[in-house]
């Protein structure tokens, strides 16, 4: 695939089609190997007879502090969740800071403390790190890069590859969608809305570990940048299956829904940082929902759709009155519109 653009655009980082094309045409083109080509959230690698999950992530969020968290907390949640949704038990993290000259140290300390707190909560150890400082203007205040390692049991290896996903399986989400993206966008932009929504960023490994120990899960992924739409589109294309989503079943907070209506956004494209999409056989759904309901971060869980034979490679949203529409993966960030 040839890269069309000459310069990087914001859309290349938004989690949708543009980013996917960039990864394929620039990175995979040169880095290609059988593990990387799977394009899963965590790579499954072997060390002797052990299977390890290995992931990396970078955090460049603006603003650094937002309702519900900060870049430090996010760095742990994001990395831990990438491991957890692959079916692994997160164990060790590396954390590396790139700091702009002039950045206030007291803010850095708050971030470091949040990072440490979240790591304790998740039960992971930060075992190695790095710090670099760049001249003023050479990075936007603070960037954090992480890598995470977890152990993965043989019986969970299928999860990240969606090997066993078939038509008839159901799609479950653990709670309300769109909180993180809306909270952050509102904190960043000058649009002057006041919204009482906090980012949902949280480590999901304990919840996920409980789910996979009590029931058979076929696939999991966390719908971060690009939202639920991005994950479902990737799955439907990877497995050449159709996906039907019931609009009435989507758990969305009233204020997020209102904000989306005001700006012309679709909640399915908004980022989440404390959500996991779970695909499982219909017969397992009740058990999974029961486990999820026992957690604060799972109390709004719901079956939102299913894998179907029709329209392979397409995700379709069905509304209450029988109408339907295709949910595409967005090419760039959503833009507030007047029309």
């Amino acid at each position, binding site marked *: 695939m040839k890269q069309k653009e000459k310069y990087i655009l914001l859309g290349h980082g938004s989690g949708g089609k543009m980013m996917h094309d960039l990864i394929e045409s620039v990175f995979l083109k040169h880095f290609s190997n059988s593990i990387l080509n799977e394009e899963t959230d965590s790579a499954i690698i072997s060390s002797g007879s052990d299977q390890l999950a290995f992931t990396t992530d970078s955090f460049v969020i603006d603003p650094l502090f937002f309702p519900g968290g900060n870049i430090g907390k996010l760095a742990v949640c994001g990395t831990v969740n990438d491991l957890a949704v692959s079916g692994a038990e997160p164990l060790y993290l590396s954390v590396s800071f790139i700091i702009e000259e002039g950045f206030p140290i007291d803010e850095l300390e708050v971030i470091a403390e949040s990072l440490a707190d979240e790591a304790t909560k998740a039960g992971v150890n930060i075992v190695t790190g790095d710090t670099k400082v760049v001249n003023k203007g050479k990075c936007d205040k603070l960037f954090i890069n992480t890598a995470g390692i977890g152990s993965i049991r043989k019986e969970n290896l299928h999860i990240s590859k969606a090997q066993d996903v078939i038509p008839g399986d159901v799609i479950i989400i653990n709670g309300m969608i769109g909180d993180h993206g809306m909270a952050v966008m509102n904190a960043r932009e000058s649009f002057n809305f006041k919204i009482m929504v906090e980012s949902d960023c949280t480590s999901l490994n304990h919840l996920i570990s409980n789910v996979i120990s009590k029931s058979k899960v076929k696939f999991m992924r966390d719908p971060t940048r690009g939202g639920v739409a991005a994950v479902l589109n990737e799955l439907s294309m990877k497995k050449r299956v159709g996906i039907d989503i019931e609009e009435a079943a989507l758990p969305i907070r009233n204020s997020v829904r209102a904000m989306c209506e005001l700006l012309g956004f679709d909640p399915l494209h908004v980022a989440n940082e404390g959500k996991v999409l779970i695909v499982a056989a219909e017969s397992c759904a009740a058990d999974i929902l029961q486990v999820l309901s026992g957690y604060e971060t799972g109390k709004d869980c719901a079956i939102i759709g299913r894998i179907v034979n029709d329209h392979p490679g397409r995700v379709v949203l069905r509304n209450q009155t029988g109408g339907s*529409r295709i949910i595409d993966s967005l090419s760039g960030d959503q833009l507030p519109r*007047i029309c």
Partner: protein
Amino acid sequence: MKYVDEYREKDLILSLAEKLRTISKKEVVLMEVCGGHTMAIHRFGIHSLLPSNIHLVSGPGCPVCVSSQHFIDSAMAFSRIPGVIITTYGDLIRVPGSSTSLEKERAAGSDIRIIYSVLESLEIAKQNPEKKVIFLGIGFETTAPATAAAIIRARQKNIFNFFVLSAHKIMPPVMKALVEEGVRIDGFIAPGHVSAITGTSIYNELASVYGLGVVISGFEPVDILQSVLMLIHQLEAMNPEVEVQYHRVVNCEGNKIAQNLMNEVFEYRDDIWRGLGLIPQSGLGIKDDFSSFDAEKQFNVEVPQSTEPKGCICGQILRGLKTPVDCSLFAKKCTPSDPVGACMVSGEGTCATYFKYQS
């Protein structure tokens, strides 16, 4: 959400749909001329609820889609002037000009900012007195009053580094032009929020001279279906008239304050509508009295000759003559991530909506 959810009520929608199935078997073509209606019709699957004899077509209702290539290219040229901050509604960011887009110019270093309200532009101008802030004024009569209010406020507050590049347009001339061109239309679903500003008399000529019914519609599925029902009733009774469905927001006189502000700041001028060509007295230009805020008059910038993209049939789509699937570029060379014509870029453009919502 109050005044929204009640008009999305499933039972109401289904009962209206049932009524439409039984009321008439005549083949009718109804045109809506509002991007908001285009979006709503597809979002709520209205097509699947209508009987096969009732055809809804989309006309030139998306102000982004109908902004001329020249306007887009001008915006790019302005963005390259050193010391200029471009402020724009999000809709315009990805619209392709002849060779580039605002998004790409931003990547290349231009200061281009997305705003929700034109008053944010004024605020940016106030906070950056050494810069020149140019607001890209797109939109129909719903949005033009806000621009007018901002210009007046800029004068009152002595904010002289604020400018507007106007591409504002008005609806009635283009509706008339389509009818005169002979486009097959049996009735119009008129834009509810434009009409909230203008009042209802702007459509009188369509009914009295051209014999076409006009129903001013809200944007929820129940509104649209009720409006279709009202038009069918008119056609059955052979009684074309201007009616209001959207009573909760639209009254006959419209919003006088908004109209007065528009008349104070803007004057009608001939304007180029992308794909449709020149439509007389269809655009809003800034009056001489406010020329110090008019970007066209205050900046001398070279705009390269605009070129229409080859193979693009946006013009025929905007007239409701063709649908996106008739275009050889649709979904192949022209997609939401890689748009050729503006009908694909704007989220509510006919092609983008079709692409997103067609099963």
